[in-house]
């Protein structure tokens, strides 16, 4: 992405995206759904396919969240953040850092849950997902403010 001069448009898009979804999520309102698919995993992508292809699909598209349902809008901002780096090497390094953090934290969360699955956890997960949604919204608003400052210095 950083081969093309898209840093400034990416920053503008980040401001719009982060402000809109940040306000929606932080206030608990519903609006446009975050970018993503409707379903968690397209079954025909991973069912009855060779093991290596399944691993490749999980690693590049499904596990990362590019082709699955995204409950929080924060994920959609991450490719824009990588695109705003301006140069190839920083963009690649930022992309690697984002992917590593996203994957590691997801792994840790799944590891935590695998030992303590209970029948009432569904209601608890709904309750906690609401709070995570607000936290995601506040984070997006902080990023929106920071991006406005950065864009102002660039112009």
């Amino acid at each position, binding site marked *: 992405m950083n081969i093309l001069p898209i840093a400034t448009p990416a920053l503008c898009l980040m401001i719009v995206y982060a402000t809109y979804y940040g306000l929606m999520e932080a206030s608990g309102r519903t609006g446009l759904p975050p970018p993503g698919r409707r379903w968690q995993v397209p079954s025909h992508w991973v069912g009855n396919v060779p093991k290596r292809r399944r691993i490749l699909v999980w690693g590049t598209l499904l596990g990362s969240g590019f082709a699955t349902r995204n409950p929080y809008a924060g994920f959609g901002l991450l490719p824009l953040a990588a695109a705003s780096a301006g140069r190839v090497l920083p963009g690649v390094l*930022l992309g690697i850092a984002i992917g590593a953090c996203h994957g590691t934290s997801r792994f840790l969360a799944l590891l935590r849950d695998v030992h303590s699955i209970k029948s009432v956890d569904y209601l608890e997960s709904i309750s906690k997902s609401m709070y995570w949604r607000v936290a995601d919204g506040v984070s997006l608003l902080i990023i929106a403010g920071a991006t406005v400052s950065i864009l102002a210095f660039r112009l």
Partner: protein
Amino acid sequence: MKSMGEATRTARPVPVAISAIGAGLTVGLVSRGNLSVLTMTAIPLAAMNGYSKAYSP
């Protein structure tokens, strides 16, 4: 009895939103528009997003 929509609404969304945007603006201004600010904010967002997905029903 509150509806689900009412129950999920943040108690005071306007001050929260203004504070969050203000914090971001301040960080950006203090850093003089340094792009590394985005790195410092995007990485925690990625970590939080990955961890919180486990709670999505």
